[in-house]
């Protein structure tokens, strides 16, 4: 079999259904998917291969797992786009803007999307960030 030439999407979410849906959608969009059910698993995958895009859920085994994982991705290569997915904004009213002057220095994500994620929105963000498509 020839080497996979599809772009690689690293997806991390501790909810198996959200993970599965993202996997199905990204594969349909022509990506190869590396799916991780925890921050630990994602870090292991990250050490093995460099993804073309990372989609990380904010709350996994720890409440801020997404922040630290996004940071780890950017440490691997600052050029890898990171989409941070979060379910917290609606419940807590807590709002953070990845691109605002206050948010930018500590949130290592290029976009923050609220759960449940609209796939259209993901597609728009991927286009905006210039992610290579399969």
């Amino acid at each position, binding site marked *: 079999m020839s080497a996979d030439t599809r772009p690689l999407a690293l997806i991390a979410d501790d909810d198996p259904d959200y993970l599965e849906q993202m996997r199905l959608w990204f594969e349909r969009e022509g990506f190869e998917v590396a799916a991780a059910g925890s921050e630990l698993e994602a870090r292991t995958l990250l050490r093995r291969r460099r993804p073309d895009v990372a989609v990380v859920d904010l709350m996994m085994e720890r409440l801020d797992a997404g922040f630290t994982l996004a940071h780890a991705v950017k440490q691997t290569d600052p050029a890898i786009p990171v989409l941070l997915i979060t*379910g917290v904004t609606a419940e807590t009213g807590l709002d953070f803007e990845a691109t605002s002057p206050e948010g930018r220095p500590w949130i290592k994500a290029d976009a923050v999307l609220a759960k449940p994620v609209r796939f259209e929105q993901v597609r728009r963000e991927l286009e905006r960030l210039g992610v290579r498509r399969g």
Partner: protein
Amino acid sequence: MADPAGVLTVLAADDEPGIRTGIARALRDLRVTAGAEGAEWSLRVEEAADGAATLERLERGGVDVLLLDHGMPLATGMDVLAALHGRDDAPLTVMVTAYGTLEMAVQATKEGAHDFLAKPFTPAELRATVAKAVRHLAAAREARRLAAEKRRVRFEFLSVLAHELKAPLGAVEGYLRLLQDGVLADDPEGAARAVERSLARLGGMRKLIFDLLDLTRIESGQKARELQDVDLAVLAAEALDTVRPAADARGLRLDLGIEGDVILRADPGEQRIVLNNLLTNAVKYNRDGGEVRVRLEGGADAVRLRVADTGIGMNEEEVGRLFGEFVRIRNERTRGIEGSGLGLSIVRRLARLHGGDVAVASRPDAGSEFTVTLPREVPA
């Protein structure tokens, strides 16, 4: 040493300097123990020489107890009371008067005075009156604090509940969108899985809502308890039948052992909920090919129900949090196991409602054993 938070400000409003000095001296060393925590309160006395100065000082706030002379120049005690009327930050007011009449007392009470002190008064009388006022204040503060705590707990419960309901809702919505957008059009297996998973998540939501209803009924005491002679052996056998399909799917052995007399006066509905929750957990958190052991032990004073599994177990920290609401132990081993996070909190409430309790012993990777103790004498 008095707690620094327990210092109250007393304003002595009187046009006679001798009275003001006397009040300050009498209250200087007074310590009042009050409130649920048994906190010690001490007093700081400030003075005001006429009605205008009194109003000005009250305007700045921070006065807890006002010792108010009835006959001051510039504004009488009644004028001050009228000015304070209905204000949230009004101090607790003790009217001090030399010519106490019933009429005045009625009028002052209408205007919000808390108590009276007749002139001339002894230092002991003053201290007793002020101590009474302090105890009243401490009780009011305690009540406010408890009400605020209750609101906070309620809010927290609701926000966690909202989150727990949102997660499955979003998961189902996501699968439906994948189906709607045709992402699964050429993938019948994927489509079937999407439907299956959606149904599973909806089932989880239903369980959560039912648990919530159980919890609400227990909490509000609305559900009348139906005490009757209940054979726990029969209920346990029923509950085992309920979980048998799930246990078979994982190759789990179910074992029921009974010792002594396990018939007791109880509400069968409550005991069914207890058994179902414990057995469902024992199946969910087990390892494939493991075992669930149910033991019923009838003692002289109580019946003990033990449910043991050979599953993933918990460490001490996890055991400590286990019976709280919406507590779900999240780690590598529990990933993908669904639950409402209310089951064990319900078990504990029901066990305590019966006058008993629930305990757990657990070792990581070895298993957990839950023991519910149900006294034979049920509290009324």
